[in-house]
């Protein structure tokens, strides 16, 4: 009888229930979309950011031995230790070698520059790079790892230079300082007693980077090696690799794990495990995950999810008020019914139960629908926000969200309808006879 009563009365007052149901539906849709995005957004942002820049850097192990005096690092910025350029192909041989999507070695060298030969010398920092290097079939280099660099002109071509004439790109600020345009020439001088002494450089490109690189000269790696007198050497290598987002397991020390666990760790493409494999592959190399990106990722995430929680809470609150209003009129319209039930001996509890079951049922329907709609919305939003990564609208059906969302809908509906149900029960049951005059 209870279910019959519930079902029949559930089907009544469609307009009012539709109103309350839509309120719950909208609230839960927003919450589902927010929750679904919040849980997947980490992956998506990571994917997005992973397109840019390195997530692993390699440098000589010797750099780990910090030389500090009075807290100040006195180790020379371009210290004497180097990695061998000839070791870099070993990167392709590690377990996750195929996940490496970009490699950019660097060799900084301090030079002096003059606008004209014999003119005033300015100190100038130059960095040797690969620009479009064939790395075992992978075309890579500094531009690939710094996709935000804007180039006017062309990148210097490696091996095109002779000892005395070379092509370079210069940073935008450096170009302004010396009044250089694409096609201009200037003279470059090495520090006394090191490598080649001087050369005429032709500006083939001007680079805007938004950072210190704008004050620098960008050379081919070979030319930098020549100036530094360090043939076949690199100072630092940036590596971009497809990685699995970092989790707690990613951060463990692999050497503290059991062999079986260590194997699992090793075979997961965490940035950490890839760095570990690089250390194994290249003797004398220290490889580390770059955290700069991930930290900003974390900031973005916490800000976004804060906002999402706010929106979700607001949506639910609005739903609660809407349910409250809809139920108030719905129950008011049914005072007669309530009075009759009281006259038949129904306790307040039995009647409250009926109305709560009714709103609960509504909440379950609307909540489930809201979950589905919200999941769709999340997929759509995800595809919109992250359109750049070529990802299609992935379905974001997260099953654990269903009970969460339905529970939220229930809480909102039950709390929202409580004032009207209480008011209905406070009503004097004798009103049923008063109605008859």
């Amino acid at each position, binding site marked *: 009888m209870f279910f019959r009563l519930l079902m029949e009365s559930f089907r009544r007052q469609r307009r009012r229930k539709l109103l309350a149901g839509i309120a719950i539906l909208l609230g839960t849709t927003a919450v589902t979309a927010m929750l679904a995005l919040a849980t997947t957004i980490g992956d998506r942002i990571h994917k997005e950011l992973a397109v840019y820049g390195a997530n692993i850097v390699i440098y000589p192990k010797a750099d780990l031995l910090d030389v500090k005096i009075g807290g100040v690092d006195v180790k020379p910025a371009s210290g004497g230790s180097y990695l061998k350029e000839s070791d870099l192909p070993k990167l392709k041989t590690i377990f996750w070698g195929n996940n490496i999507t970009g490699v950019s070695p660097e060799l900084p060298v301090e030079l002096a520059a003059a606008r004209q030969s014999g003119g005033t010398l300015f100190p100038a920092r130059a960095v040797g790079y690969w620009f479009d290097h064939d790395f075992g079939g992978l075309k890579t280099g500094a531009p690939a790892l710094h996709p935000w660099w804007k180039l006017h002109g062309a990148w210097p071509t490696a091996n095109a230079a002779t000892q005395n004439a070379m092509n370079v790109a210069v940073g935008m600020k450096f170009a302004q300082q010396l009044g250089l345009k694409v096609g201009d020439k200037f003279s470059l001088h090495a520090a006394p007693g090191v490598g080649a002494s001087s050369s005429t450089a032709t500006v083939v490109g001007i680079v805007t980077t938004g950072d210190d690189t704008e004050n620098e000269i960008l050379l081919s790696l070979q030319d930098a090696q020549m100036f530094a007198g360090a043939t076949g050497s690199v100072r630092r290598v940036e590596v971009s690799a497809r990685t699995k987002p970092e989790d707690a397991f990613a951060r463990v020390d692999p050497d503290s794990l059991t062999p079986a666990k260590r194997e699992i760790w090793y075979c997961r493409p965490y940035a950490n495990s890839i760095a570990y494999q690089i250390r194994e592959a290249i003797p004398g190399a220290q490889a580390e995950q770059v955290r700069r990106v991930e930290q900003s990722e974390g900031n973005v995430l916490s800000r976004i999810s804060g906002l999402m929680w706010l929106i979700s809470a607001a949506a639910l609150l609005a739903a609660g008020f809407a349910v409250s209003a809809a139920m108030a009129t719905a129950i008011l319209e049914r005072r007669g019914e309530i009075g*009759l039930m009281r006259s*038949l*001996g129904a306790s307040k509890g039995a009647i409250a139960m009926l109305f709560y079951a009714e709103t609960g049922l509504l909440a379950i329907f609307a909540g489930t629908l809201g979950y589905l709609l919200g999941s769709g919305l999340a997929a759509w939003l995800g595809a919109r926000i992250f359109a750049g990564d070529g990802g299609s609208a992935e379905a974001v059906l997260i099953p654990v969200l269903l009970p969460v969302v339905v529970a939220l809908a229930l809480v909102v509906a039950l709390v929202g309808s409580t004032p009207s149900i209480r008011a209905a029960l406070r009503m004097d049951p*004798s009103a049923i006879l008063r109605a*008859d005059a």
Partner: protein
Amino acid sequence: MSEAKVQTGPLVDPYGSTRDDCAVIALKQVTREYAGHGSVVRALGDATFSIVAGEWVAITGPSGSGKSTLVNLIGCLDRPTSGELKIDNVDVASMSATELDRFRADKIGFIFQQFHLIPYLSALENVMLAQYFHSMTDEAEARAALERVGLDKRVSHLPSELSGGEQQRVCIARALINNPPVLLADEPTGNLDAANQTIVAELLQDLHRNGHTIVMVTHDPEMAGLAQRRIALSHGKVFCHPVGGPMVTLRR
């Protein structure tokens, strides 16, 4: 019988206090006051009378005389401000609200002027609703109750598909379903045409013959005449009259 036969003035219960032993309903100086705006409205004052099992009593009086107040008290929908009200020898005043709900389901069968059927439930289900709130539903019993009021062909009809008289008969079946010691009818024929009034009146007479106690509010002298006794209300005061009539035989 006519209005002229009605004596006025306060009366002692003509059957005396010995009747209290077999009284289904017994009021002793029952007063119900409503707190109005600044003043107190005495809807019923010092009512003392009793109704014995099997009796059919009509409650009459002009509008505002306290009929509904009295029916609410007897129906356990309300409690007296002062005085003692016993239904089936249990004092209602001492009961908690939940106990009163229970008690009402057990003791009182309501018959309303407006029928008060749940519009989305069939005739059968409306009867079963009373079973549900009382204890357990029993479809066979509910069908039997509808058959008794002559609606065996109408069990699955919705109230909107029934005539007023049929609706009132569903209401009577519902009132009977839990075998309450008291049937409380508020203007049971107030909304019916003459033909249906006759059917309902005959049904009530039949119930009376079968020993049901009926307390009935009515404006209709003809209906009041069917009762054995009239309780006339005037300004919250009770006047009891024995009403004689050819078709009434008081069992004693």
